């Protein structure tokens, strides 16, 4: 059992989605490559990009989805998974497991 995380509720108020993408501020270079992320108000440079993969889904629906995921190692050793929404241009962090 888990306590209420206070997450957004969908049409059925008794069901709470898990692991929703969380907006994150990032710094990119002139070529659009990720060079740093902002975590808890602090700028954390990216030491290495461990993996990159793309997810395209729901292409047959109005809610088309296109994301480029990156598993990045920050300079302090923290491992983070982020993605850029290829349709809106926004950046988000999200566990990918």
């Amino acid at each position, binding site marked *: 059992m888990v306590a209420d*995380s206070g997450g957004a509720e969908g049409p059925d108020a008794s*069901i*709470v989605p898990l*692991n929703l993408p969380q907006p994150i501020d990032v710094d990119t270079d002139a070529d659009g490559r990720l060079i740093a992320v902002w975590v808890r108000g602090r700028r954390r440079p990216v030491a290495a990009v461990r993996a990159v993969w793309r997810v395209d889904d729901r292409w047959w629906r109005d809610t088309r989805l296109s994301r480029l995921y990156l598993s990045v190692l920050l300079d302090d050793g923290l491992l983070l998974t982020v993605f850029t929404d290829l349709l809106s241009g926004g950046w988000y962090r999200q566990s990918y497991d």
Partner: protein
Amino acid sequence: ARQREPVCSASMTFPTATVAHETILRALQALAAQLFTRPELRGRFVRYALLSASIVRRPTWQRRVAFKEPVGNPARALPAFKNALALHPPAGPVEDLTVTLGGITGETARQGSLLVEVRRQDQLREALRQLEVVMGKRPPIYQVKDVQPWSRIPEERRVLTPPSFP
């Protein structure tokens, strides 16, 4: 239409209005004892009690006492009554007293299953019911449920839902 929850009440009037906590507590215990001998409560357990008292020249005193776990006899209810009286004493002399017992459980005996998993589910279900009584609303407890664990979209894999029992 919503069914009214069954409750059981008993009342008494003091010959002289009293402020003595000990007297009030003995009266509460006597009322509880009277209630637990009633046929509708025999062998059953209750989750909460409503205590109310008419106070001389003051508004009615009322306290809702939620038991930590369902009680089946007046002795088990007494510590909670004592606590309620100590923390929120009536504001003046008490003329009469009413005890209402509610949250009457369906079981006639607390018999555990031989199967560990069934017993665990029973205990969890019971704990959640009692928590609901204590909080006065559905507790914000959820369980993680796999929806599409194979999905490439992480937020589609799992959700939180209210606990459900087979």
